[in-house]
């Protein structure tokens, strides 16, 4: 038996129907997934049910239990993106690049949720959807920045090209954020008094616990999804590579078929 070229053997695998193959899940992620769902249910029960209304904010305080965890998740995701970008530039391993990309995608999704829920909450407690304070404005600009980051990831080129470009951009975003935050803060503090403090709530034990449940639930969710997403991205890259193998084989066959070839073609 001659050993087949890996590309060739994979190509035949692909043709042989679609057998039930292992997905992106493993025992660990399944446990993680169940833990996420359970803690999400807890979050709903505590957030909407057990926790008391606030003295000042009354029932509106219940938004805190989903709003803060989504912000936390989004910022966690962007920190991971920044760190993985730096790690990629240091180590040049595509795994870091995919982690950065998957994390940015999660961050953008949850940043969008954060902005919408934040606006609703603002309407309830401040009476307006939007306040030009540093936190909100930075968050909005961060959101747009990472949409740009994801756009650059999709520009094409080889995996290494994509990885270097996006890693550099991921680090530039880190440069950008403090500047934006500081400038908005300076602007608002010079022109009017302190804006609303979103967290001017007196938290009792049960409220703190509900918030804690929320943060745990969303951290579990992040971990769970990032593992699946990174694995899916790895497979996307593999499919690209396999596409190249197939295209290469096709082109070589084309060369062999051209007449006038001497012994070298065979």
């Amino acid at each position, binding site marked *: 038996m001659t050993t087949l070229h890996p590309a060739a053997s994979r190509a035949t695998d692909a043709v042989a129907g679609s057998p039930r193959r292992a997905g992106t899940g493993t025992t660990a992620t399944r446990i993680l997934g169940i833990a996420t769902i359970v803690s999400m249910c807890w979050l709903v029960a505590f957030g909407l049910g057990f926790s008391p209304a606030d003295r000042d904010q009354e029932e509106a305080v219940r938004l805190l239990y989903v709003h803060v965890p989504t912000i936390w998740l989004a910022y966690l995701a962007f920190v991971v993106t920044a760190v993985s970008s730096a790690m990629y530039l240091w180590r040049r391993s595509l795994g870091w690049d995919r982690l950065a990309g998957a994390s940015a995608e999660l961050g953008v999704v949850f940043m969008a949720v954060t902005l919408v829920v934040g606006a609703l909450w603002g309407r309830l407690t401040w009476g307006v959807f939007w306040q030009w304070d540093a936190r909100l404005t930075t968050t909005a600009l961060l959101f747009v920045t990472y949409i740009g980051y994801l756009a650059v990831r999709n520009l*094409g080129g*080889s995996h*290494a*090209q994509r990885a270097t470009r996006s890693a550099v951009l991921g680090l530039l975003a880190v440069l950008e954020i403090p500047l934006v935050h500081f400038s908005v803060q300076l602007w608002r503090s010079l022109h009017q008094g302190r804006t609303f403090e979103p967290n001017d709530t007196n938290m009792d034990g049960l409220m703190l616990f509900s918030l804690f449940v929320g943060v745990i639930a969303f951290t579990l969710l992040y971990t769970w999804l990032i593992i699946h997403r990174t694995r899916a991205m790895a497979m996307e890259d593999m499919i*690209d590579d396999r*596409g*190249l193998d197939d*295209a*290469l084989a096709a*082109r*070589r066959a*084309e*060369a062999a078929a*051209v007449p006038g*070839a*001497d012994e*070298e*073609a065979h």
Partner: protein
Amino acid sequence: MSSAATDPAPVVELDDAVAVLGSFPALAGATLRVQRREILLLQGPNGAGKTTLLRLCAGLLPVARGRAAVLGWDLAHHRREVRPHVGLLGHANGLYLDLSVGDNVRFWGSTVGASGAEITEAMALLAVDGRLGGLKVRSLSAGQKRRTALACLVARRAQLWLLDEPHAGLDAAGRDELDRTLRAAAAAGATIVVASHELERAGALATRTVEVVAGQVREP
């Protein structure tokens, strides 16, 4: 490849090199040796990968598979180091159309530190001095643009010249001039790789010819 044994360090060394455009392997495992002072002609149909081969050697494309070395630099790691020693004349001339011929040659020459005398000499060699030197490139004919681009190449004193259809758009006198320039450059120690459809013209010039077919190099 009998000459390969005599000279230990070929200028271009490709071993099963693959280069990808988008997701298409334009170069699908090319193996090629080019020795110093050779004038190598690449022939082959459109889409065979001649341009990609030249761009790979210029360090403009990453090596997707296989090995490629130019002037002793491994292109997998030292694409940037190679570039200053290589001159590429592609389909585009790489000129600033709103600048004059002289400004272009001076700019490209200066980026590698060529002296004023060398730049003047390069312009004289390609006959783009005098009245032509003051004209905007945009107003030139295709052949004149080509000559200007070659003058930039001469001014840059590249060790490896990679030329993609250099005869295109040149009149008979321009072609003679080009051939003379290339022979002189090779005699002075440069190595030249030419991709051309004009086999008679380029064949007479070349010291060796290989065929590029479907992304691979075939020795005759």
